């Protein structure tokens, strides 16, 4: 019998980071299934501990990034993801996945809009860990990951809301520099349960040391920060009780 925690990675038309995200999940101990959303129903959440939304351009970012993915997911499984979270399940959104989780209302209220530059950015970003979060526990206070997005500027209806998220520990990850105009420099958010986490940077793109741009990088001999991100998440998921099946 499979003893590894089971991660379900949802793939939408336009999702393009599913393979490397699945590779990162497998490398850190998850049994991983990639599921096209066209086949998704509530039964697929049975036995799953973690639902992952990976990066890409779901539905061509039509209307706004993550919007159509939200609508389609709601049409297929309605509120099953909220129920999954309430039963103890974990949800992770990376880049476009973060945009989808935000659109779904599974994270503190906010939106990810076009960068202030009006341009797509693809670079490495310095990051500050501001508070404890399941995927960050094995990471240092300062680290770096690649980013690649056009709509990565996190905004809230009132800028004070973003500051409040920082104060309340709901924004555990911020950019070291202002790269996209995000309020309070927010790069990652978690919900109040601590089991829903979204971030714009791509941890799956820095799984191995060799992924780093600097061959003399002064870090782990084998692994990149992304590996420790997924390893942290694996530790948190493994330590929690298995997610019971719906009645």
């Amino acid at each position, binding site marked *: 019998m499979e003893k590894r925690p089971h991660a379900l990675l949802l793939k939408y038309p336009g999702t393009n980071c599913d393979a490397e995200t699945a590779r990162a999940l497998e490398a850190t101990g998850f049994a991983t299934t990639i599921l096209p959303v066209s086949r998704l129903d509530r039964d697929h959440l049975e036995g799953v501990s973690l639902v992952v939304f990976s990066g890409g351009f779901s539905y061509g970012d039509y209307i706004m990034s993550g*919007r159509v993915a939200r609508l389609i997911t709601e049409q297929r499984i309605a509120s099953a993801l909220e129920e999954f979270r309430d039963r103890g399940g974990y949800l992770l959104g990376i880049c476009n996945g973060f945009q989808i989780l935000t659109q779904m209302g599974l994270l503190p209220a906010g*939106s990810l*809009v076009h960068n*202030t*530059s009006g341009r797509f950015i693809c670079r490495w970003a310095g990051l500050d860990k501001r508070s404890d979060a399941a995927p960050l526990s094995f990471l240092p206070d300062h680290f770096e990951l690649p980013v690649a997005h056009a709509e990565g500027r996190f905004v809230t209806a009132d800028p004070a809301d973003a500051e409040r998220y920082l104060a309340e520990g709901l924004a555990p990850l911020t950019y070291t520099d202002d790269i996209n105009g995000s309020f309070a420099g927010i790069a990652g958010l978690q919900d109040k349960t601590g089991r829903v986490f979204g971030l714009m940077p791509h941890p799956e793109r820095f799984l191995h040391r060799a992924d780093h741009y600097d061959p003399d990088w002064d870090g782990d001999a084998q692994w990149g920060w992304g590996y420790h991100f997924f390893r942290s998440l694996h530790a948190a998921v493994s330590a929690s009780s298995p997610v019971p099946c719906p009645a």
Partner: protein
Amino acid sequence: MPNATYEIIDRFQEAGPADRLLYAPLAGNLTCRQTRLYHFGFEGDPDAVETFVRRTLLDGISQELHHGEEPALTGFRFLIDYGMKTQALDLEKETIKACHAGLGDAGFSLTQLTLRTRVYVFGEGAADPAVFVRDICNPAIHSWSVVAA
């Protein structure tokens, strides 16, 4: 046939350099903003159309809804209103129609849907709309019009 037009504006988008829309930068100090225009032909409840727009097309945190054909922004030098030709495949339109169909009974039937982008150009200095049309619009797939202030 009833119809309704909505223009969606990003609240947090400030006017940025217009040069970013062009292959070669212009002299002068022009800026631009973009909005999206949705024109619905429908049969049924007009309130249901707006409910659909607010649920499907509008982000309540980062966007504002403007009703009608009149330009939502003011103070521009000119605007370019462009979108896919009626005979061209517009995948975004098809996606919105699929979302409408997926709702089952949305309270109205969709008889026509047209999506347009509006590029507003602001500022001083030489500003030839033809340069913008040349670099933004593709005659093979787009139709467009230029509206002077």
